[in-house]
């Protein structure tokens, strides 16, 4: 016992004062749309359809990138012949709607040569980040301002997200100092932290857990699968898709799996303590 105390005093506090300063070497891909020639190599390389191009009208095409379904495999970064896709280093991406996690650019197609030229970035449908943040704030009416009790529900995950959610409780991240606490029952919870893809066999249990959670309940979807079905897709016989197919989702935390600081950030966004950010910063080109 004495030795344990001495060792612990020697070790001191290992909790990091600034968990958000840790920059991963790869967060999400960043597309330099004006540089893009719409050759489609990245879309073909993407295993989940997170990058997708389509005709949008006569002489026009669009290219879109959705962090909701990105599994951070880097295939697009390696595939791009124009070096227009680069490795972003932001781990802390969170949003309130799926469209907020998407960027779309319009291109003009030259009728003679078929060459594509960047025209403009499109405005995403739906509310802006600020509007959504205000709406969530109104809904919870300041009742969850200083602390959150969280019930985690695995509705079909591969366990990758669970490992990283558990990592937020380790002594280095220590999420309890931010007022976030994991509880054992939905009846004690303010927030359901749901990972997916929601499976057919978990759908009923997820619905019941939601019903057991007192209002104002906040649903946070975690991971590429929770946000969009990820590599398992949507509409399958067993994997139904993103959490928002079953429940109204308030905050999306994409990533495969999201890093612990990303999960922590998303919870603080749900609390209204941090601002949501959805476009990753590109790392400096070398």
């Amino acid at each position: 016992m004495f030795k344990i105390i001495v060792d612990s005093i020697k070790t001191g506090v290992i909790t990091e004062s600034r968990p958000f300063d840790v920059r991963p070497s790869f967060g999400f891909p960043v597309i330099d749309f004006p540089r893009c020639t719409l050759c489609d190599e990245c879309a073909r390389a993407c295993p989940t359809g997170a990058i997708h191009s389509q005709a949008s009208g006569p002489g026009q095409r669009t290219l879109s990138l959705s962090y909701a379904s990105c599994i951070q495999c880097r295939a697009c970064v390696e595939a791009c012949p124009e070096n227009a896709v680069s490795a972003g280093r932001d781990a802390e991406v969170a949003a309130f709607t799926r469209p907020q996690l998407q960027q779309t650019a319009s291109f003009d197609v030259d009728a003679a040569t078929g060459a594509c030229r960047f025209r403009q970035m499109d405005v995403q449908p739906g509310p802006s980040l600020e509007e959504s943040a205000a709406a969530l704030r109104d809904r919870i009416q300041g009742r969850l301002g200083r602390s959150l009790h969280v019930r985690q529900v695995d509705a079909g995950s591969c366990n990758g997200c669970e490992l990283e959610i558990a990592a937020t409780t380790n002594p280095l991240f220590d999420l309890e100092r931010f007022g976030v606490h994991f509880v054992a029952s939905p009846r004690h919870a303010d927030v359901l932290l749901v990972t997916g893809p929601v499976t057919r066999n978990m759908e009923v249990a997820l619905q019941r857990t939601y019903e057991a959670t007192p209002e104002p309940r906040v649903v946070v979807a975690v991971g590429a699968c929770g946000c969009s079905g990820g590599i398992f897709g949507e509409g399958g016989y067993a994997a139904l898709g993103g959490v928002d197919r079953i429940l109204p989702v308030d905050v999306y935390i994409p990533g495969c799996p999201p890093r612990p600081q990303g999960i922590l950030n998303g919870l603080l966004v749900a609390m209204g303590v941090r601002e949501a950010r959805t476009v990753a910063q590109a790392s400096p080109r070398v």
Partner: protein
Amino acid sequence: MSMVTAEIANALNVAEYRIQARQPGEVAIEVRAADLPFIADAAVQGLNARLLSLFAADERARRGRFVVHHVWSLPKLDTFLSVSAPVDPAEPSFPSITARHPAANWFEREVMDYFGLVPEGHPNLERVALHDDWPEGAWALRKDFDPETQVPRVEGSFHPFRPVTGEGVFQVPVGPVHAGIIEPGHFRFDVAGEPVLYLQLRLFYVHKGIEKRFERLPWPHTLFLAESISGDTAVGHALAYSHAIERLAEVEVPARAQVLRAVLLELERMYNHIADIGALATDVAFTVPASRAQAQREGLVRLYERLFGTRLLRGTIAFGGVKHDLTPEGADALRRHLRMLEREFDSLITLLIDSGSFTDRVDVTGVLSNQVARDLGIVGMAARASGIDADLRRDHPHDAYSSLTFEVPVESGGDVRARLMVRAREVEQSFRIVSRALDMLPDTPLRSSMPDALPADAAALGWAEAWRGPCVHWAATDERGQLMRVKITDPSFLNWPGLTHAVPGNIIPDFPVINKSFNLSYSGNDR
């Protein structure tokens, strides 16, 4: 190889020409379905065979038949034996081997659930994978089942819990949503006071249709799917699956990549074992070592992030090799970190086993006896803690393991402490393996190029001994070189029945620590 085929032919009492040696380390024989039980008995008696997988494939479109496959490990011969038998769609049944080889129990019922083929003579013909609200007659892995079928929910009770009766006996249902940050599954405890009389499981809550999804995705994208079978075993499953695809395409992996793959597999073993050891301390409320283990685990995954750009080692394996090289500076950083970690880990284990209050909780708790483990065909780390000396890295060496020397730790207790000690000793072996591997890193390319298309009408096994135990994959292509069927076997699938034998006799408050000492995957089991 001919000596091996001769020995196998002799033991199975079949003509040697019927044993086909297709790929290195793997032989196949096709028999009549009626002969499956005799072959199984002969393989176990004559060759010490251990069942690692059992599955079906739907070949009705081209050959008018289903095929049932048994995959046996023959450790003494460094060979896998694949026994296949055709099944007539007009009489959709095949003889069960479960009564004599209980390892086949869940496998055969799963074939029934997903293919509609009935294992005749199975002692318990209940559903295992399908939940009660799944209608009869919808077989998801048949080729004519569209993966996007929206199957209606029906009222049903195909999977009754066995009642335990007596004065003061009651049932405690737990799950599928659990109290901790863990995966979903349902446990039904029958208890008399505190002691558990009987434990029943209902799993497959996180069945995602992964095997079906393999048939749908373009094969170059399927490695990402393999990494998501069980998020804590990304390297293990990615390796087993790449091995299957590489053997199918007859691609050789360069020597440097083989060594790096072994390093990655050991790094995965380390972070999982250390986290589990911490979790065992958590489950008996011993928080100091729990926090230390969590800090050690976090230190490791941050190092992985620096070296490979990924904390949980996703995206490190590529078909034909590995994606990222380890630079000399990276190798030095790894060596330094592991030297420091080795000292910290050693003091963590000492702290645990020197504490009477900890050992009181783990000694003779959750015993899985050697006999039961053998009968059930338990594999991997849990088997080694019950005195079964089996490890694919040594018995069927993959990657660089044939040139790496290491010990396979075996404990005889079969209790929580034995599983803890196997983990601790395996982490120590991993330190040696990584250190030796880094010293011998050959100077070759990182990956071989893969063909644009996979060969048509081919099939191959792939395997890897991941931290829980053997991951065994089987991949087969159709006449156009598309993936026709992929079978994934996670060690958890073989080990879950072991838990139901380790828990009775213990008290409910010890269940978390027993469950964690196995730490079986739900996602890998349910797929």
